[in-house]
């Protein structure tokens, strides 16, 4: 077990290094002037001397390799720099926003798992029925529909037309405290949309594996012993189908990151994923770079978890 963890970590280090180098190389060749970006509209009334002074303060006039080394050194010692688009230290931005992203995506994963298991099993159980057709067709269509479009549709229906749920944000603006119920109400739409957008492959996967196991001998045996249909499906077929499930889930982290970026943006959810877009729009390199690294780390962690889960679930591969 430890060997897997170490092996994965050993693989992660060069990966992260390569990502930092690539990001820095891209930024260095970027036509954008970070000072201009930082000043925004104020650039119209800022004299060139002030610009030059800021440039010197940020060390933009020093050689590239030196800048890279400085940046990397700062990163590894936890000094993540200042975010120009948020006007605050990058670390603060991330510490404040990461919990909200974890909360929303965590809930979305749970909802996605539960929902897909139920829906996928239903489709398998009633294979070939109208219900099955609707579920598989819906899953395929859902896979093809852009998540931001689904999110807009959800806002139009539930926030604009029916007015059941808030259209965005974290809490009611008037409140100065975090009321869990308030937050929960604001979470319903983003979490549901994120969960639904990620669940197509899962529904289809659950359906196929349940169908496959329903054909296997031990399930047929259970049936022939006269067990109730529901018991057969839940106890035997579903359990066997669950085995490689977690592994697949770990490998889906990149898609989850992508979904989170789009969903958080549409619903103005104050998480790290929507901060990525804000940082990108204002070419806020310090923040964008750290967020990209964070996304990469999430993927590495997902792969590690997938490996571990696979070994724990299936002792045969433990050797």
């Amino acid at each position, binding site marked *: 077990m430890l060997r897997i963890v170490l092996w994965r970590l050993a693989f992660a280090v060069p990966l992260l290094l390569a990502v930092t180098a690539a990001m820095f190389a891209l930024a260095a060749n970027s*036509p*954008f*002037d970070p000072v*201009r*970006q930082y*000043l*925004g*509209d*104020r*650039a*119209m*009334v*800022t*004299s*060139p001397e*002030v*610009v030059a002074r800021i440039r010197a303060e940020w060390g933009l006039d020093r050689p590239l390799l030196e800048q890279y080394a400085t940046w990397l050194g700062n990163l590894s010692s936890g000094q993540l720099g200042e975010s120009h688009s*948020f*006007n*605050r230290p990058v670390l*603060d*931005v991330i*510490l*404040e*926003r990461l*919990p*909200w992203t*974890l*909360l929303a995506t*965590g*809930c979305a994963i*749970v*909802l996605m*798992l*539960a929902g897909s*298991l*139920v829906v996928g099993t239903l489709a398998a159980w009633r294979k070939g029925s109208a219900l099955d057709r609707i579920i598989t067709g819906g899953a395929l269509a859902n896979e093809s529909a852009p998540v931001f479009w689904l999110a807009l549709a959800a806002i139009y229906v539930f*926030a*604009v037309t029916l*007015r059941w749920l*808030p*259209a*965005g*944000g*974290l809490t*009611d*603006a*008037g*409140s*100065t*405290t*975090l*009321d*869990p119920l308030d*937050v*929960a109400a604001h979470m319903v739409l983003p979490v549901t949309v994120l969960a639904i957008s990620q669940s197509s492959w899962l529904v289809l996967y659950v359906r196929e594996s349940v169908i496959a196991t329903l054909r296997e001998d031990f399930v047929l045996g259970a049936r022939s012993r006269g067990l109730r249909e529901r018991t057969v499906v839940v106890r035997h077929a579903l359990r066997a189908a669950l085995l490689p499930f977690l592994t697949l889930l770990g490998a889906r982290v990149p898609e989850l990151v992508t979904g989170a970026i789009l969903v958080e943006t549409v619903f*103005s959810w*104050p998480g790290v994923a929507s901060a990525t877009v804000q940082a990108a*729009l204002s*070419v806020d390199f310090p923040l964008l770079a750290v967020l990209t690294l964070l996304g990469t780390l999430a993927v590495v962690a997902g792969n590690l978890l997938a490996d571990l889960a696979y070994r724990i679930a299936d002792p045969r591969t433990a050797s």
Partner: protein
Amino acid sequence: MLSRLWPAALVAVLALTACSAPSTAPAADDAFVIAISSEFETLDPVKGYAPDGGSMMFDGLMTRSADLTLRPALATAPPVVSADGLSAVFTLRQGVRFHDGRPLTAKDVAYTYTSVKGSPIGGDYEAIDTVTAKDDHTVEFRLKHAYAPLTQRTTLGIVPEGGFPAGKPIGTGPYTFVSWTPGDKVVMTANKDYWGGAPAIGRVVVAFAADDNVRATRLAAGEFDATILPPKAAARFENQRGLKVYKVDSADYRGIMWPFKQKVTGDVAIRKAMSLAIDRQAMVDTILAGAGKPAYGPVSPDTVWHNPSVTGRTDPEAARKLLDEAGHKPGPDGIRASFTLMYPAGDSLRKELSLAVASDAKKIGIDVKLAGLDWDAIEPRMARDALMMGYGSPYDPDYVNFELFHSKFAGQGFFNPGHYDNPKVDAALEKGRASTDQAVRRQAYQDFQQLVHDDEAWTYLAFLKHVYVIRGDYQGVTPSVDAHEHATGGLFRDLHTWKPAA
């Protein structure tokens, strides 16, 4: 099974995040929530926060009335200006205290103006040489050159000497700072000991929501008490009970900046023809949903400085004739001339205006190629390609115009990017800046507007109306003429004098 875990997980994670999030003062149902589109870059006046007033937590030496005239705030009277215009002396109000209890002295004023010169807005205070405290309540501004708009520049909020700890603003204003949740909101509470009288609205929250739709929806849901919206998004709130829509005139214009050193856009016939081809009223009616008025020059008709003879009309036929006479005959494809018009890609208003300009130009045989770019990509091209720009200040015609039209700023970043050069305009601007005689200044800026119009230095499209929606009924809401930038300035600038109507 798993579905049973879901509520438990929700509660657990919620509890975790609730602990880590900053919990501020008690829930305030009485809070007045203003939603604005972009977060403050800073709350420190000496770093560029609200130099033209509307800062709520700070006072300037002077402040503006609704008719834009200046009246004393932390000063007791307008400054005593020396005959050569190089010195201005302010006497400070007695007994004013900062939120932390320290008394206001002349040293604080000197510190504020010395510090602001090193900030991104330092260029606005370039005329100021030194600011010194003569005694506790007298402060003298020494100028490098005579500078008539100096008093206009003294609306900058005064900070205590030595500043304040980062993120904990301290001023003398009607509201004291409570908390700033980045990305979310700033909370302020009424300063009961305010020298101008305690505000009636006891608690103010300034919430940030970049998306216009989000602000509109949350206002409709009662989460926000006031917000600024694009005219189209505000339309559905008109005549709605409990809500009041204010359409406030502004000096905030959109217009085309022409590069003068280019063959096509450097030709006055092309520029004048474009001005004739553009249907400004259609832009105002559709793109601005009626909230605006056609613009023909840089000075708002709602200010005393406006020159009424600067006007224009829509007449494509006359435009074609003008082009014919200037030798721009249509080619086999019907195209007479072609140029590129840039607009900032993230700005949908400027995008739509640019599209409308291109469509109008097509009707007179001018091919306008659009380029939606980032500001960084726009900047190096400004001397070559036309640009959909926006600016405008109602306070003093010297503001912005000096830098935009004086030839000595040609090609310096966003100052006069089109290399406009007219010695008569330079002279008028200089006269207006240096003279302390109101009549002389007025004539100088009348001439300036006429000259810029005759040259068609820019083609102005529209002055926007800023649209505010306010929930509830308040007395003392006094619309004034807004500037281009107006976060909590504009209609909210004197929120502390608003009173809920009985």
